């Protein structure tokens, strides 16, 4: 995959965020403390400027707490940007403490995008674990949108969570499961008494579903250990490293290739990623 350069953002104060209002908060998982925030920019210029595509991320900030890079989980086909955030440390806690109507800082969009053109005319397989669905959801919604659906062939979604309470975006999952033009599979690591679906890890489910590699692209996001086994599984199914797309997470600060923090080999994950092909990953130092 080539280094994808998004549009130039010269002549802006790169570190001053635009301000947005939180217009909705959805508690996705009480167990994992994960919430989705829907935002609306305070001014039109900022809304205009925030033109994004699936795969990109933004630096969200709370004045006094700091900034954190978060994937844009909505699709540009939706009216407002959405961010699904797991409470981890200082910044994500501060964001979780905000309510509807509060303002939040947004810088971006940053990073490259999923290879939208390369994927046209192909069968698409999504393999997600836990919060790894957040960046992929943007692409799923984008592809399923009436404007874009015809450009992609069969769409298969394989999603796993630790427990039934850990499934994110339940409203979307239900829709995807019902759609005729999507094959949807889900699993939990550990079932409970209320759950009647599959039990087992994502890589096992992938092996069962056994998607064909011919004319296909697989996209996978999730915890590192899951990714490791999914990559093995996909390889066994005949997927070449060029047919597998994933995202890398590195600690980030600037998001614009200056601060050096996300550097791996010749790549800066914030501008050359976060989307990488498995081929690219095989060629870089194992420092992620």
């Amino acid at each position, binding site marked *: 995959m080539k280094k994808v*350069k*998004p549009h*130039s*953002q*010269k*002549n*802006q*104060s*790169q*570190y*001053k*965020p635009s*301000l947005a209002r939180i217009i909705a908060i959805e508690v996705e998982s009480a167990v994992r403390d994960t919430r989705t925030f829907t935002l609306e920019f*305070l001014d039109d210029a900022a809304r205009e400027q925030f033109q994004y595509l699936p795969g990109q991320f933004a630096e969200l*900030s709370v*004045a*006094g*707490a*700091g*900034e954190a890079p978060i994937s844009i989980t909505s699709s540009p086909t939706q009216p407002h940007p959405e961010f699904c955030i797991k409470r*981890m*440390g200082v910044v*994500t806690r501060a964001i979780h403490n905000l309510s509807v109507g509060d*303002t939040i*800082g947004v810088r971006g969009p940053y990073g490259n995008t999923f290879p939208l053109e390369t994927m046209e005319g192909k069968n698409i397989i999504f393999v997600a674990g836990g919060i790894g669905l957040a960046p992929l959801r943007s692409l799923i919604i984008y592809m399923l949108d009436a404007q874009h659906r015809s450009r992609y062939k069969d769409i298969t979604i394989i999603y796993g969570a630790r427990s039934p309470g850990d499934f994110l975006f339940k409203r979307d999952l239900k829709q995807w499961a019902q759609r005729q033009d999507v094959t949807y599979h889900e699993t939990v690591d550990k079932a409970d008494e209320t759950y009647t679906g599959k039990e087992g890890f994502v890589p096992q489910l992938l092996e069962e579903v056994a998607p064909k590699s011919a004319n296909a692209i697989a996209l996978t996001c999730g915890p*590192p250990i899951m990714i490791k086994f999914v990559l093995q599984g996909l390889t066994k199914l005949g997927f070449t490293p060029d047919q597998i797309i994933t995202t890398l*997470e*590195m*600690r980030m*600060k*600037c998001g*614009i*290739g*200056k*601060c*050096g*923090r996300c*550097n*791996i*080999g*010749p790549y800066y994950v914030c*501008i050359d990623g976060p989307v990488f092909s498995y081929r690219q990953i095989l060629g870089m*130092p194992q*420092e*992620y």
Partner: protein
Amino acid sequence: MAKDSTKHLTSKLLPKKNLEQFLDALLKQYDVIAPVEQNGFSRYQKITRGTECCLKYRLPRNSIKEFFLPQDETLFFFEPGAASLSDAPSAKREPIIFPVRPCDVRALTILDAVFDDEQFSDSYYVEKRRRMRLIGMACLEPDDTCFCETFDINSTDGTGCDLFLTEVEDSYIIDVLTTKGKTLIKTLADAPQELIQKKKQQVAARRKSQSLKLAEVQNFLKQCFESELWEEMAAKCLSCGACAFLCPTCHCFDITDDVAGKIGRRLRSWDCCMFPKFTLHASGHNPRTKHAQRLRQRIMHKFSYFPENKSLIACVGCGRCVVACPVNLDIREILSTLASSTHPASP
């Protein structure tokens, strides 16, 4: 970086005894940054009088990068709780650095490649760079720790400066290289031809700084990623970061919020890839936990990754890291050790 043309306009004469007076005249209109003597070394800082400038040491301990990328810089102010941000005020007087050595000038072109690239230009850096005037000075005698020549830096060439001084007998010949520079030397007389000739002879006869064989540096480093030598070389590294903070090309930074009462600031501050927490994720995962991995990152970034991306080696051979390291790690030795490990001397 768009600088005005660097063709040589004229040569002026500044007798050494008039240097303080020259600086005092500049101070009337500009902020002047010059080396100031401390305990056995000098540091670049803002001066208030020409007499404070000390040229006893070749390279001040700090580099000039802090005047473009300050150690702590306010990106903007905010009032905690209020939904508005305000810009940090910019300095009123234009600054001048005197004197800048050719290695440090090259270091600025490396920082330019980072902060003023075609995709994202960093207005904080670019604005400071635009306002700055550089008065360079030739090195006719390198220090033991200088190895600028390794990177094809000509220590008598003023490219990138507005004015460039070369010491000749008890005077400086000032080459005027830009129109911005011209405004600084209005009152000086032209240099006499015989001194200009003498300068040329001196430049030709200068003692060059040491040169490492770096032609294949990128290639050999690629082969060295998995080398056991990293562990060995990094064994004594303290991860103190002195090397990176003093380095004119190291530019890693952190962004944090600082709140004191009703005034909040988003700050950018120097950081360093040699610090263990540099790459620590919120989850506790850390891709570079060992000294060896971090030393490797610093070296690979300068000599392999950066050249791959920007076609420039991110070291200028100033030797500041060599002088400053408390446990005497020497970047020249690191490179030559690695180089000879991939090309073992044939018997």
